């Protein structure tokens, strides 16, 4: 992705419209990170529009596919119960946008572990993302852990990954060792998968 010649500012009035605009944006040869981030932030979360995708699991967070972006991106909704969190992970050379639809999520950034190191991974920064905020990360920025630290509220987030990917590495915070994992969808287009 590179800076486009002209920056357009879109405002998505609904989830459907957001998806339509995203399709158009990603049909171009060049896509701007800032443009996509602004576009995702512009959509004001309306639970009525995404409740059908928000399927929670008791034991862990879920990934619910919303749109396949004509092969250019995957758009999905993640549902986080109280206390649910992810492991530290990378993004397989893709771009990752994460917008909060409900509740709050804490994002902790980590540096890549040293090649021959056998030590604890370094926490670079952390922040709590609020409703409608959109964060961005890619492998050159670093790795992150995302968690719902609330013990009373659930959280829902909208993720866009481009290009789409179905596996990534998870990292052990104490040793930096990585472990490849396949990512699966809890539901696709509102239907529970098996």
């Amino acid at each position, binding site marked *: 992705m590179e800076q486009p010649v002209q920056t357009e500012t879109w405002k998505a009035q609904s989830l459907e419209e957001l998806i339509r605009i995203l399709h158009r944006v990603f049909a171009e040869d060049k896509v701007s990170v800032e443009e996509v981030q602004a576009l995702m932030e512009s959509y004001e979360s309306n639970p009525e529009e995404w409740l059908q995708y928000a399927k929670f699991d*008791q*034991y*862990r967070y879920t990934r619910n596919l919303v749109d396949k972006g004509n092969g250019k991106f995957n758009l999905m909704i993640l549902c986080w119960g*109280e*206390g649910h*969190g992810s*492991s530290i992970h990378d993004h397989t050379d893709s771009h990752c946008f994460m917008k909060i639809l409900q509740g709050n999520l804490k994002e902790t950034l980590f540096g890549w572990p040293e090649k021959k190191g*056998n030590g*604890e991974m370094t926490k670079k920064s952390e922040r709590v993302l609020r409703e409608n905020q959109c964060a961005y990360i890619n492998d050159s920025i670093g790795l992150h852990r995302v968690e719902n*630290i*609330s*013990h*009373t509220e659930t959280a829902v987030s909208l993720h866009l990954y481009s290009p789409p990917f179905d596996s990534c590495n*998870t990292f*052990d*915070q*104490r*040793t930096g*060792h*990585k*472990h490849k994992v396949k990512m699966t969808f809890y539901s696709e287009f509102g239907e529970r998968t098996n």
Partner: protein
Amino acid sequence: LPAGLSQWFPALEVLDVSGTGLTELGAELLALPHLRSLLAKNNRLGGPGSLPKGLGEAPLGRSLRVLNLSGNRFAEVPPALLELRGLQSLSLGGNRLHGIPSDIQELRSLEFLYLGGNFITSIPPELANLPSLSYLVLCDNKIQSIPPQLAQLHSLRSLSLHNNLLTYLPREILNLVHLEELSLRGNPLVVRFVRDLTYNPPSLQELAGRTIKTRNVAYAPSDLPENLVRYLSLASNCPNPKCGGVYFDSCVRQIKFVDFCGKYRIPLMHYLCSPECSSPCSSASQSSTSQSESDSEDEASVAARRMQKVLLG
């Protein structure tokens, strides 16, 4: 709660009074015969009388399945709560609990227990007597150790222990074969062996006992004083699969790092018969990460000469 609630809504199954500033849940609840789910999070509950008396005798005692009291001010689990025999899901997250009562085992139907975000310092072994418990959340507390009895929770699928004060876990935790999720981050888990030697060599009696057991020296109760016959019966097998040895009192407590569920490397406390033994760590041999396997071996060879100072309380 408004008086007459049960007259207006006798068929009420789900009641959500979250975020209403309630300081107590009154006796109006007792008259709701079909109530299955009560959500009262983010209120001001916690003082004496927060829950009405006589919960056990009311229909609620059998019908209530879900109770969410998260985000309140409970400093202890209210004893009245333990009368809810049909309860399947209980959340007391984000309160001010300092402990868990051993009578928690009364909640025989409990499957889901959320106690994250309190000030809990220890876990009663009676928690293990909940046969259906599948989801246990203890994150963000002040827990220093896990009782080995927790390994009896055969239905446990998810165990959340992150952000506590754990330095190691009991080896028995490996017995939780259905465990799919285990969070341990944010604990001061022992990362490397402490370079301290505290191994008391076995006594002569122990050495003799070991020889008798390992060489299968035959003896009859009439051959030995009663106390020695009893002593010989207490031999424990060394868990090292390559060592057929036994030990009595003199054992080595060793922290061994194990790949658990293929995702985590955690320190477990092992008992071995001698410093030369190494522990089995069955999970490590099936580990998918070759890096951590070789690390385990490095650490094992270090451990062979340098033993962990006893970390057990």
